[in-house]
């Protein structure tokens, strides 16, 4: 088995910049396009979209709103149930990273109205149901993310969306395990 190359800071920064450029310009990369017909599909040419908001920018703005909502719910859960703060810290850092990346990718003018922040009062009173609500929200976010990855025009953007969906699935599984152990 080959050893994967080490990640450098330069590559990490370059990856975010590449995503930003792709989403903002609405270009397709890597020979993939949503309109392809299968494994033998011809790569679509990289033509910047002019005069309209590229579909991937609209999609990124919607995903940004959903990730921010998830982050707000995690934070509100930790505030209402300080005993869960450690449990949900991984979900918090994950969605914070997703929001940070998407903010770089979505131009200010294309950003949706921010979601109303989750308040502690919206979180279930008992920790168990609060945890279960987070599992449901992560599961829903992962399912939406998987659909969005298939819809994305840009292959590079689809790759990131699929990764985010996988991250939410991991958080849902981990939080479900914690919830099961508490019973």
């Amino acid at each position, binding site marked *: 088995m080959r050893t994967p190359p080490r990640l450098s800071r330069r590559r990490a920064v370059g990856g975010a910049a590449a995503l930003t450029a792709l989403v903002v310009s609405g270009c397709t990369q*890597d*020979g993939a396009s949503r309109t392809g*017909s299968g*494994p033998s599909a011809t790569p679509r040419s990289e033509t910047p979209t002019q005069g309209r908001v590229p579909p991937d920018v609209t999609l990124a703005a919607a995903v940004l709103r959903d990730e921010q909502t998830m982050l707000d719910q995690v934070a509100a859960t930790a505030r209402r149930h300080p005993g869960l703060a450690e449990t949900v810290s991984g979900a918090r850092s994950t969605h914070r990273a997703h929001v940070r990346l998407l903010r770089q990718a979505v131009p200010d003018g294309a950003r949706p109205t921010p979601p109303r922040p989750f308040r502690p009062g919206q979180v279930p009173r008992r920790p168990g149901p609060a945890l279960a609500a987070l599992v449901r929200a992560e599961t829903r976010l992962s399912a939406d993310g998987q659909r969005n990855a*298939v819809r994305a025009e840009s292959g590079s953007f689809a790759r*990131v969306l699929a990764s985010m969906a996988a991250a939410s699935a*991991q958080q849902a*599984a981990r939080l479900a395990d914690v919830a099961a152990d508490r019973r």
Partner: protein
Amino acid sequence: MTPLQALQQTLAGEHAAVYVYGVLGGRLSSTEHPELMSRVVAAYDAHVARRDHVTARLEAAGAEPVAAEVSYELPNPARTAAQLTAVALLTEQRCANVYAQTVGSTSRADRKWAVEALVDTAVRQLGLGGRPDEFPGVREL
């Protein structure tokens, strides 16, 4: 990378994963480590199914599916339960990288398949001692 190249790379990864899990299953004792054994068997079945799926997709597209290597080098001696678990985790992490690349290089049904494989392998990593990742399968982020 073209869609066909991505599928060929995915198939190469599945060949390696099937081989590795076959070795792990042969070295594990189901009485001493029943839970790990059940995870290894489940992973083996999943990768065999994916190998067969990608092979069929390539054949349907008129391509010659890449063949498996005779053997694959394991990253550690793979003798103790900890070593076997580490090999399984590394296998899933490498598969995640391949699936993510396939997501970015394909469209429609092939992309949907790769997305689902990425999600599955990311969750599977947790049962093998892996920790949740902010961007599973995307090393540069």
